[in-house]
Structures are given as structure tokens and as C-alpha cells.
């Protein structure tokens, strides 16, 4: 998942400090010196004990991208301990990883960050010999456009952006242009993401989602400003609650968020817009700084197992790149057009590109202008 960027960044325990904290916590006012010393030593010993034990793997992933028992099963099967933490946006993760000594072994960047990470020398080459489950991937993900030989990454989950709506909304939204319909005034939200909003405007104008020239972007900006009076708010996942409750009729949404809402309220549905839509793919990579390449490969291989990936889809309601896993899903889920659209729908999709620096700055300025309008 690529953009949930409100939280800034996420990303062993100093024995001495651990001991010192115990000291402060354990000693009251009337503590005689030798007791304090004893507590200190006990603290240090305790922590020293913790430091030994099973081998460790540090995994940094998007939130809600594993099933409740995925990690636990891996830990018990391979006899390791996994430190698993989550982040909300690529920038969060990159801020930590860019330094080159973040401590993480496996992270999950979105596809358009792979190239930059390679250029910064952050990624380790993958050893396909240690990834025998690779053929489980869908054919199109075995040679993805961003890494045709899968030298550095393994596709994990993918998704698209489209329109989530309440079926009572009239007319039924089917294209980006429908988001400018004055009948939805006050009950419409867009994603709080400059790339997505400007992208939707570009697609509405029948331009490419990845346009970088000034003229196109300026036209898109004007569309966004024209739309603003109709909007209730710019919301990412927060619209979900309100859509289920009925406050919001139509929302610019990621497919997986929409699916989560539909699970709770069957009157909701999701549409892949007629003019086209952006696609993103999140991939597993091994960081070059990691000294645990073996374990990292074992973990990625484990995630590629069909039953494991299928279980994750059931919980996270995301679309997996694992073809074998899709075959294991119950009929209803496999045919779920929100998560797994038909081939002809998919053909209208466009992979999000990497943006050059100058365009990034222009887009950001436009975003401020749109928000201040």
C-alpha cells in the first residue's frame, strides 16, 4: 500500500540504560545502598539473559498486511524470533532506511520506490535459489515492469484506486467525471494525497496519470480547485466509518479500503473508473545492510506459500500477487471484482511511475494551492 502519510516516521535495548531504569524504578527513598546495587545487577543480568536466545529477524511492513498468526507460525516453524513493526507510508520507512543502519532486514516498498532504493544502494540482490516458491506468483508478477527479472524484489500485494460508493447514490458513479457531479455535494470525499487527487483530475481530462508537463498539471489543478466546494473533506481511510454509517455517498478510495467497508455494509460497492486508474504494487525486499540474508530469504519464501498468502488475504482484504494463493480462496472471494477485477478492467490500469524532482516540487506547490483555495 503506498500512501497513508499522516504519522511521521516509524521505524537492542541498551543494557546500561535498562539497568539504570530498573535502579530508579526499584529504589524508594529509604533504599540502602547495597540493595540498590543488587537491583542494578539483577537488572543487567536479566537483560543479558534476554539478549541470548533464538536468532532474530527484523521485518518492517505496512500495517494490516499479515494475518494474526502469520508471524507466529513462522517463528515456531523456523525457531526464530521476529521483530515485526509497521509503517503508514513509504516516506516513513525510507526516512529510517536511507541511513543504511536502520536495523531492519526485510521491508516492503511500493514498486515506484524500488528504482530509487537501488540507486541509493539500499537493496541486496535476491538469491532465487533460496526462493523456490517464486513460481507461485501470478505470471504478470513474475516479470513486473519495475524489475523484470525479480533481481531485487518479490511482489507481495497490489491494489488500485477507484470510486467507492453507496448503491443508493444516483447516478451510479462509473467514471472519474462523476466525482464532479453537483448532486453529490457535501457527501463526497477525495483521498488526502496530492498524487492521487491530481492523478484523478488528469485521468478525468483523459491525460496520463503520470503526466509531468506543466500545462497538463495546471489543467488538473484547476479541476481540483473546481471540485473543492463539492467536497466534504479529503480523507484516506477515515471515510470508511462514515460511509458505513451513511454520511458519505461517494468516496475516492483504494480498493482494499473499499472492500473493508463493503464487508461491513453490503449496500456499498466499488467501481474501477472508465477513464483508467492507477495501480500500485508493494514488494518484499532484503536490505543490503542486513546481516541475516538467509533468514530474510526464508521469510520471503514463507510468505510466498499459497496457504500463507491466502490466509493473509482473508484478513487484510488486499489483492495478493500470489496466483497459487488465489486458487485456494473460496469461490466468492476469488470472484470478488473489487479486489480481483477482470482482465479487461485491469487493462485500463496504469502503473504509477516515479516522479522527477522538478515535477514533485510543482505538484507539492499545487497541493498547497488547492488546500488553501
Amino acid at each position, binding site marked *: 500500500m503506498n500512501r*497513508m502519510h*499522516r*504519522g*511521521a*516516521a*516509524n*521505524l*537492542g*535495548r*541498551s543494557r546500561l*540504560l*535498562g539497568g*539504570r*531504569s530498573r535502579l*530508579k*524504578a526499584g529504589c524508594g527513598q529509604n533504599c540502602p545502598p547495597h540493595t540498590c546495587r543488587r537491583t542494578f545487577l539483577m537488572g543487567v543480568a536479566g537483560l543479558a539473559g534476554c539478549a541470548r536466545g533464538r536468532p532474530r529477524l*527484523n521485518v518492517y511492513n*505496512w*500495517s*494490516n498486511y499479515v494475518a*494474526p498468526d502469520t508471524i507466529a507460525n513462522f517463528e515456531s516453524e523456523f525457531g526464530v524470533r521476529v*521483530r*515485526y*513493526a*509497521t*509503517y*503508514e507510508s513509504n516516506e*516513513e520507512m525510507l*526516512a529510517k532506511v536511507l*541511513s543504511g*543502519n*536502520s*536495523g*531492519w532486514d526485510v521491508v516492503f516498498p511500493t514498486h515506484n520506490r524500488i528504482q530509487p532504493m537501488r540507486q541509493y544502494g539500499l537493496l541486496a540482490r535476491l538469491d532465487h535459489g533460496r526462493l523456490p516458491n517464486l513460481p507461485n506468483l501470478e505470471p504478470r508478477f513474475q516479470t513486473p515492469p519495475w524489475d523484470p527479472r525479480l533481481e531485487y524484489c518479490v511482489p507481495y500485494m497490489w491494489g488500485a484506486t477507484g470510486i467507492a460508493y453507496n448503491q443508493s447514490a444516483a447516478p451510479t458513479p462509473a467514471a472519474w467525471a462523476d466525482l464532479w457531479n453537483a448532486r453529490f455535494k457535501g457527501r463526497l470525499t477525495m483521498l488526502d494525497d496530492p498524487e492521487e487527487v491530481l492523478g484523478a483530475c488528469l485521468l478525468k481530462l483523459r491525460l496520463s496519470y503520470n503526466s509531468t508537463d506543466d500545462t497538463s498539471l495546471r489543467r488538473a489543478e484547476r479541476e481540483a480547485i473546481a471540485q473543492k466546494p463539492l467536497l466534504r473533506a479529503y480523507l484516506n*481511510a*477515515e471515510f*470508511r*466509518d462514515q460511509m*458505513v*454509517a451513511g454520511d458519505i455517498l461517494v468516496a475516492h478510495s483504494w480498493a482494499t479500503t473499499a472492500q*473493508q467497508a463493503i464487508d*461491513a455494509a453490503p449496500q456499498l460497492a466499488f467501481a474501477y473508473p472508465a477513464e483508467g486508474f492507477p495501480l500500485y504494487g508493494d514488494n518484499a525486499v532484503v536490505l543490503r545492510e542486513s546481516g541475516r540474508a538467509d533468514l530474510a530469504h526464508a521469510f520471503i519464501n514463507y510468505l510466498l506459500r499459497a496457504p500463507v498468502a491466502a490466509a493473509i488475504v482473508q484478513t487484510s482484504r488486499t489483492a495478493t500477487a500470489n496466483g497459487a494463493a488465489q486458487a485456494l480462496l473460496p469461490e466468492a472471494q476469488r470472484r470478488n471484482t473489487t479486489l480481483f477485477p477482470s482482465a479487461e478492467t485491469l487493462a485500463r490500469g496504469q502503473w504509477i511511475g516515479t516522479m522527477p524532482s522538478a515535477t514533485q516540487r510543482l505538484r507539492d506547490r499545487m497541493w498547497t494551492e488547492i488546500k488553501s483555495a
Partner: protein
Amino acid sequence: MKRWLGFYAAAVYLFLHLPLAILAVFSFNSSRFTVWQGFSLRWYRAIFHDQQLGEGAWNSVIIALTATIISTAAGTLCAYGLWKRGSKLLSGSLYLSLVTPEIVMGISLLALFQWSFRWLHWRLGLHTVILAHVAFSIAYVVIVIAARLRTFSPALEEAALDLGATEWQAFRYVTLPALLPGIVAAALLALTVSFDDYVITSMVAGVDSETLPMVIYAMARRGASPVINAISALIVVFFGALVLISERVQKA
């Protein structure tokens, strides 16, 4: 006047605690969304299966306690020293540390740690989080204590000196006890600010030092799961109980 004040205070407390009440109610909701669908304890059960939560809570407590002790001590001494004779440089720095947006503080501290770690071969961890928390909470402590000192007359200390005490004794036995309520208030402020901090902590936390806000934020941003409501309700009950107990102990 006192009665009006009482009514007013009740209204403000209602304002402050209403969201908490909402949280508590929905922690018993069987649905994930804020539409009531029936009573259920499933979210409370889920807490006990979540190892991350437990570790996060433990880390938060350690960090908050340590950082508060350090910053309250340093801040009190600083406020007192500045009261004796001011220092434009130090005061200015304290103000500026308050003004700095959290994300800027986080990024700059991260950069500092990453640079210094090249030579010291350290990693990010609990210690970096504690240092960061001290960094931003000292100013709060100093400001609260300084405000309290404004109302304190130096004459008392002078009297102590006249009676033969050293400067240190005058501080220790005359000023410090008088400052105690202010110190407690400042420490409470520092503790709260530290326990609840997300932005700065998330930037300087290492692989092993996830705090409770980090765990909660991660859960909330992606899916406002009522497990968070359940945790929050438990936290409130726990600290509320702690407060009541400490009251009893103090009175005894």
C-alpha cells in the same frame, strides 16, 4: 461564587472526559465500525493475545518515567538557576525548543543520532528515545517552575543564610519544599507529554523500542480497530485506580 465555580468545573470535566466515555462504550461494540451492533468482549480478549501491545506499554512506561525524572530534575535546577540570574542564551534556547515543530525536532534528532552513531557504533533504541523525550520536555518543566518561582520571595532564603545556612541548605530546606507542588505539576506535565508522544518517538525509536502510541497509531491509522478503544479504557481505569490509591496512601 464557589457554587458557580463548581458547576463550571463539572462542565469542563465533562468536556474533557466525554471522548473517553465514547471510547469506553465502543470498546464493547461487536462491530469494527462506530455503528453499534451489539455487546461483546472480543476486543478485550484480543488485547491479551497481542504481544506488541504489552511490549509497547512496558517501553512507554520505562521511557516516560526515566525521561520525566531526568527532565524534571534538570528543569527544576535550571529554573532556579535562571531565577537567581537570567541567561538570555539559555532562555532563548528553551523558548525555541518549544517552537520547533515536532517533526523537525524528530528529524534533527534522528540526524544527530545517526551522525554520532557512526563514531560510537550505537543503534537507535530506548536510550535515544529517552534522550529525545528529555530534549523536548525540559522547556515545559522550566516554564512551569519559573512561573511558580515568580511568586516566591528571596527574603526567605536570605533569612536562612542569616541564620547560618549555606546556599545549598537554603535551597534544600527552604525553597525546595515550597516548590514541591510546582515540581509535581511540572513532572505530571512532562510525564504526560512523554507518554503520549508519537511523532518524535517514532522517528528516533529503534527496532526494539516501540512505544504504546506507536502501536496504537499504527492500528488506528489503518483501521480504527476497537482494540484501541479497549486499551484506552483499560489505561484510564488503571491510572484512575493508581490516582485513587496514591491519594489514600498520602492521607494515611
